[in-house]
């Protein structure tokens, strides 16, 4: 069965420190993965998708099919990065996203 696992409920780092939010998936099809972010009092929004291989707000994520992972990384955290981050897997059948449980990132000054 398809599943997205985000093992950390909360990740707390100091400003300027590197950040890695972990995401692992389980899917028998061809994986298409995304990171969504929800800032305080804002709606859930797309941060980045693996197929575009882009860096958004300094964040990058590489799909590792061997390890079935899609970890989100940023070399130097900023206070405005504090938010809830969700890893999501797109399922071809049904055109839907399956979300992980989410990780709260707290960046302290």
């Amino acid at each position, binding site marked *: 069965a398809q599943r997205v696992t985000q093992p950390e409920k909360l990740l707390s780092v100091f400003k300027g420190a590197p950040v890695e939010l972990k995401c692992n998936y389980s899917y028998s099809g061809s994986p298409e993965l995304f990171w*969504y972010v929800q800032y305080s009092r804002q709606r859930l929004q797309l941060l980045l*998708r693996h197929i575009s291989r882009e860096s958004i707000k300094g964040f990058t994520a590489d799909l590792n099919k061997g390890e079935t992972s899609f970890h989100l990384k940023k070399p130097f955290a900023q206070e405005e990065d504090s938010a809830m981050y969700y890893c999501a897997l797109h399922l071809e059948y049904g*055109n839907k996203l399956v979300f992980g449980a989410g990780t709260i990132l707290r960046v302290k000054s």
Partner: protein
Amino acid sequence: EPEVTQTPSHQVTQMGQEVILRCVPISNHLYFYWYRQILGQKVEFLVSFYNNEISEKSEIFDDQFSVERPDGSNFTLKIRSTKLEDSAMYFCASSESTSGQYTGELFFGEGSRLTVL
């Protein structure tokens, strides 16, 4: 920039009552979704809607739930005979298809918080 809008932002209802949550998706989008997030839990898929019919639904989406697109703009979720465990944040989302291919980006509304007493 166009946004998905949802009403009401918060609804309190008595157990057993019917509730309708409303959504206005982005106007040129083709796919519509409802997701649910019970407090402290993950965002769960409920149903997807395409071409005026349900394309996929989860196990949660039983006979108690229904969706409708009554006109060209609204997309509603009806919950009949509400139960305490239906208390959650309900998110509507829409997405577009470009060049016949699904891009994967969902645009979410701000959510409707349902409290069942």
